[in-house]
C-alpha cells in the first residue's frame, strides 16, 4: 500500500506531522554528526542557516522537483514516483522536497568516503546545487568519479531522439504502441546508438494470473535500462513488423548533459510499475522533464490513462517550444517488402513466390532466368517472404541467401523511405486519444433519442486514421447514455469493457490473421415490446484483403456468448463480413453484417459514414438494423464526435 501514500487525504495529516518531526530530527542528527568534526560542522551549520530562504526556494523549483520525480497529490502534498530508498538522502525524501534538498547539501559537502560516493552518484543534483546555491561549489570537495566518467564517455550523447513504435495488436502488451529514448553520438550510425527504455522487471516464475495482476496493480518494479538501439529495431521493425518514427528532440546542450547525469542517478532505482499510468510513456516524460524542466506537464500526461501517443501529443503542443523535430520514418520489414514487390515484373513475382514456397528449386530458377539483376531481385524478394512467414524455413532461407551472394551487388533502391512516407502522417498528427460525442437519432421501436457518449481511449475504425494504423480499432471503456423522447427516460445504452478489431490485410504472401474481441453490455429490443440489458462477449478470427490502396474487406468467424435480463446464457456461432473504405481524404465508410445462429438465423447489417472535419471534429452517420430477439428495429443516428 506504500504507493498510495500521499494520495489518501485521510492519511495526510498525521503523516505530514510525523515527517516534519522526522525531518527536523534528521537534519539535527546530520548536523550533530557534522559537528563532531569540530569547526567544519559549525561552519556547515552557518552555511545552511545563511541560505535558509534560498534552500526553501530551491526546493520548490521545477528543476529540483523533476530531479526527484515528485508528483503533486491531494492538498499540494508531494510524493516521488521513485520507490527505492537508496535514491533519497533524507529518510522523508520521498515526500519532502525541502528535507531532501537539505540532506543532499549536507551529504554532498561531507568529506568522508560516504560523501564521495554521494557526489559521484548524484551528479545531476551536484550540478544543480553548484549552479544555484552560492558558495556550494566553492565548498565542494573535488575528485574524479571514474566510473561515471567512463560511462558518460562511452555514451557521448550529442542528440536525443524520441522513438515511437506503432501499436502491435497481435501482442496485447503492445496494443497502444511503445516509446523509448535514443541517445545518438555525433555522426554515428544510429543503429549503434543506445536506447533508453523503461520497463517492468518481472519474475518469470510467477504463475500466470498473479503475473497479470501484479503487472497491472504495481506488483512489479519498473527500471530504466539501456541497450543498443539495433536490438530494438531488430525486434520491432524486423520481427514484429511495426513502423518506427524517430523524432529528434530539440534539447539544449545543458539539457542533454542533465539527461545523461540524471540517468546515472537512476541506476538501480526502482519505480512502481502500473500499466495504466506509470508506464513507459509516463516515466519517459518524467525523465525528459528532469533534463528539461521547461517542459510543461500536459493534462494528457496528468490523466489517469497515459498511452504512448499522448506523450507525442503532449510534446507537440504549442506550449513546448517545438521540441519535437521532423521525424524520420523507419518502415517495417513488411512495408519494405510490399514496396520492393511492386517493383518486380509479374514474372519475377510469380517466380519469387514459387522459390519462397518451395515449389520451384533455386537452381531451376537460376537456370531459367536470363539476367543477373532479375535473379537477384527474385532471390531477395523470396528472402523477404521467407522472413515474413512464420515457419521453420531456415534451410531454404539459407539456400536463397547463398545463391544471392554469388550474384553481383545491385545498387540499392534509394529513397524507399521517402516514397513510403509520402501520404503517411506521422503519429503526433493523429487525433487525440479521448473522445466525447453527441448523437441524435431515431429507433423504429423506441422512437427519437439523444445520446451522450464518452470513450477514454483510443481509436475507432471510423475515426481519422492519419498517424495511426488503418483497420486497428481499440476502444477502451466506451459508454453512452440516451434520452428517449417518447418515454421521457434516460438509459445507459452501451457500456463496453473493450472493443478491439484488428484487420491485417494479406499482403505480399504474408499470412496474418485478423481478429476481433468485444466485451460489452448493451440495451436491445427483446421481443414482445420489452427492452433489456444484454451482456455480450464476441471473439472472432479470420482474414482481411486489401481493397484499393487503403481499403480492406474482411471475413471473421467465431462465437458470441450472451446473457441478459430476460435471456438464458447461450453461446452461438457468429460471422462478421464487412469492408472499411477510405472514400476520399476526409470521407470514410465502414459497412458490415453480423450473422449469427441462435435457434434461428439472425443478421445485423450496419453502415457508418464518417466525415473528418479536422483533427478535433468528426461527423458520423450510422444506419443499422437488428433483430436479435425476434423484433426487428432500424436505427438511424447522426453524431458529432470531439477528440481531446
Amino acid at each position: 500500500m506504500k504507493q498510495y501514500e500521499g494520495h489518501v487525504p485521510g492519511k495526510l495529516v498525521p503523516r505530514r506531522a510525523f515527517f516534519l518531526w522526522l525531518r527536523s530530527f534528521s537534519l539535527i542528527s546530520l548536523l550533530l554528526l557534522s559537528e563532531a568534526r569540530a569547526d567544519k560542522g559549525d561552519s556547515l551549520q552557518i552555511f545552511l542557516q545563511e541560505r535558509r530562504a534560498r534552500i526553501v526556494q530551491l526546493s520548490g523549483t521545477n528543476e529540483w522537483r523533476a530531479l526527484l520525480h515528485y508528483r503533486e497529490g491531494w492538498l499540494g502534498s508531494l510524493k516521488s514516483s521513485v520507490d527505492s530508498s537508496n535514491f533519497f538522502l533524507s529518510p522523508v525524501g520521498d515526500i519532502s522536497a525541502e528535507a531532501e534538498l537539505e540532506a543532499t547539501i549536507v551529504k554532498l559537502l561531507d568529506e568522508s568516503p560516504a560523501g564521495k560516493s554521494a557526489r559521484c552518484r548524484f551528479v545531476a543534483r551536484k550540478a544543480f546545487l553548484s549552479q544555484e546555491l552560492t558558495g556550494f561549489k566553492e565548498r565542494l570537495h573535488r575528485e574524479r568519479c571514474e566510473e561515471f566518467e567512463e560511462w558518460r564517455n562511452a555514451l557521448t550523447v550529442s542528440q536525443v531522439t524520441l522513438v515511437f513504435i506503432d501499436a502491435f495488436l497481435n501482442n496485447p502488451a503492445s496494443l497502444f504502441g511503445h516509446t523509448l529514448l535514443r541517445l545518438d553520438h555525433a555522426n554515428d550510425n544510429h543503429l549503434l546508438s543506445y536506447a533508453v527504455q523503461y520497463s517492468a522487471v518481472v519474475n518469470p516464475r510467477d504463475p500466470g494470473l498473479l503475473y497479470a495482476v501484479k503487472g497491472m496493480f504495481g506488483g512489479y518494479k519498473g527500471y530504466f535500462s539501456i541497450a543498443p538501439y539495433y536490438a530494438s529495431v531488430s525486434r520491432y521493425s524486423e520481427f514484429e513488423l511495426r513502423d518506427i518514427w524517430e523524432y529528434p528532440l530539440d534539447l539544449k546542450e545543458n539539457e542533454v548533459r542533465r539527461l545523461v547525469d540524471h540517468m546515472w542517478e537512476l541506476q538501480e532505482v526502482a519505480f512502481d510499475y502500473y500499466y495504466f499510468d506509470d508506464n513507459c510513456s509516463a516515466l519517459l516524460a518524467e525523465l525528459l522533464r528532469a533534463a528539461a524542466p521547461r517542459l510543461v506537464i500536459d493534462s494528457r500526461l496528468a490523466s489517469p490513462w497515459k498511452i504512448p501517443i499522448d506523450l507525442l501529443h503532449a510534446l507537440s503542443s504549442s506550449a513546448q517550444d517545438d521540441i519535437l523535430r521532423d521525424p524520420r520514418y523507419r518502415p517495417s520489414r513488411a512495408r519494405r517488402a510490399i514496396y520492393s514487390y511492386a517493383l518486380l515484373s509479374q514474372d519475377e513475382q510469380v517466380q519469387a513466390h514459387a522459390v519462397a514456397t518451395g515449389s520451384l528449386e533455386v537452381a531451376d530458377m537460376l537456370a531459367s532466368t536470363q539476367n543477373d539483376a532479375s535473379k537477384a531481385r527474385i532471390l531477395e524478394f523470396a528472402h523477404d517472404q521467407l522472413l515474413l512467414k512464420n515457419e521453420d524455413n531456415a534451410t531454404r532461407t539459407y539456400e536463397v541467401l547463398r545463391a544471392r551472394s554469388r550474384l553481383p551487388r545491385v545498387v540499392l533502391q534509394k529513397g524507399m523511405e521517402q516514397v513510403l512516407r509520402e501520404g503517411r502522417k506521422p503519429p503526433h498528427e493523429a487525433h487525440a486519444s479521448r473522445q466525447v460525442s453527441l448523437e441524435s437519432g431515431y429507433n423504429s421501436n423506441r422512437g427519437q433519442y439523444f445520446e451522450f457518449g464518452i470513450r477514454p481511449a483510443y481509436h475507432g475504425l471510423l475515426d481519422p486514421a492519419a498517424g495511426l494504423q488503418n483497420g486497428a480499432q481499440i476502444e477502451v471503456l466506451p459508454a453512452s447514455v440516451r434520452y428517449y423522447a417518447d418515454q421521457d427516460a434516460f438509459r445507459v445504452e452501451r457500456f463496453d469493457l473493450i472493443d478491439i478489431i484488428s484487420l491485417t490485410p494479406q499482403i505480399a504472401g504474408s499470412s496474418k490473421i485478423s481478429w476481433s474481441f468485444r466485451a460489452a453490455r448493451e440495451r436491445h429490443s427483446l421481443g414482445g415490446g420489452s427492452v433489456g440489458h444484454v451482456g455480450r462477449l464476441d471473439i472472432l478470427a479470420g482474414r482481411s484483403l486489401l481493397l484499393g490502396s487503403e481499403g480492406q474487406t474482411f471475413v471473421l468467424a467465431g462465437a458470441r456468448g450472451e446473457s441478459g435480463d430476460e435471456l438464458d446464457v447461450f453461446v452461438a456461432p457468429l460471422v462478421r463480413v464487412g469492408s472499411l473504405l477510405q472514400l476520399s481524404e476526409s470521407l470514410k465508410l465502414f459497412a458490415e453484417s453480423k450473422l449469427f445462429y441462435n435457434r434461428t438465423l439472425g443478421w445485423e447489417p450496419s453502415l457508418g459514414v464518417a466525415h473528418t472535419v479536422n483533427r478535433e471534429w468528426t461527423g458520423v452517420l450510422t444506419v443499422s438494423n437488428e433483430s436479435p430477439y425476434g423484433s426487428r428495429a432500424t436505427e438511424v443516428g447522426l453524431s458529432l464526435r470531439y477528440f481531446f
Partner: protein
Amino acid sequence: MHMTKRQKGIFVLAVALLGMNSEALAQNVGRCGWGSKLFEGNDGIAPQVLAVTTNGFLGNQTFGITSGTSGCTQSGVVRSNWKSVLFIEQNKSLLARDIATGDGETLVAFADVIGVEQQDKAHFFAQSQSNFGQLFPSEKVTAGEVAEALKTMLEKDGQLKKYAAAV
C-alpha cells in the same frame, strides 16, 4: 525474462479485458544491465556469447536474443571487445541478408562497429559478399563462428587486415 505460454495466455486475457496500457512486461530482451540486477554473478561472458545461438540462424521462428546481458558492463554500456560478437548475435538474420546482397544498413552498422573507414567500406562489403560461404557455412552457424570466420577473412586481406583485431 521470457513469458511462458501459459503466462502469455492469461496475460492476453487480462489485457484484453482490462485494456491496459504500454508494453513493458518481457520487454527487456537484449538489454544491458543498467538499472537492473541481471548482471550479477555474470563473470563468464565469453562462453555465453559464443554458445547462445540455438535458434535457426537464418530463419525467424523466434526472436533469438537469449543472451541479453552478455557483453555488457555493469552500467549497461557494451564492452568494446564484445561489441562485434554481440552485434552479430543480435542481428544475425539481417546481417546474413546484407552480406549476401553486398549492402544494407545492418552491414554498414557492422562496418562501423569494427571501425572500417569510409574508403575501405566498399572493399569490405565486396569481400564479405564473396566470402558468404565461409562466413556462413550452414544455417546452423553460431555468432561466435561467424566472428571467427570474419576475423580470418580480414587477416588474409591486405587492405582489411588492420580491422581484424576489432572483431
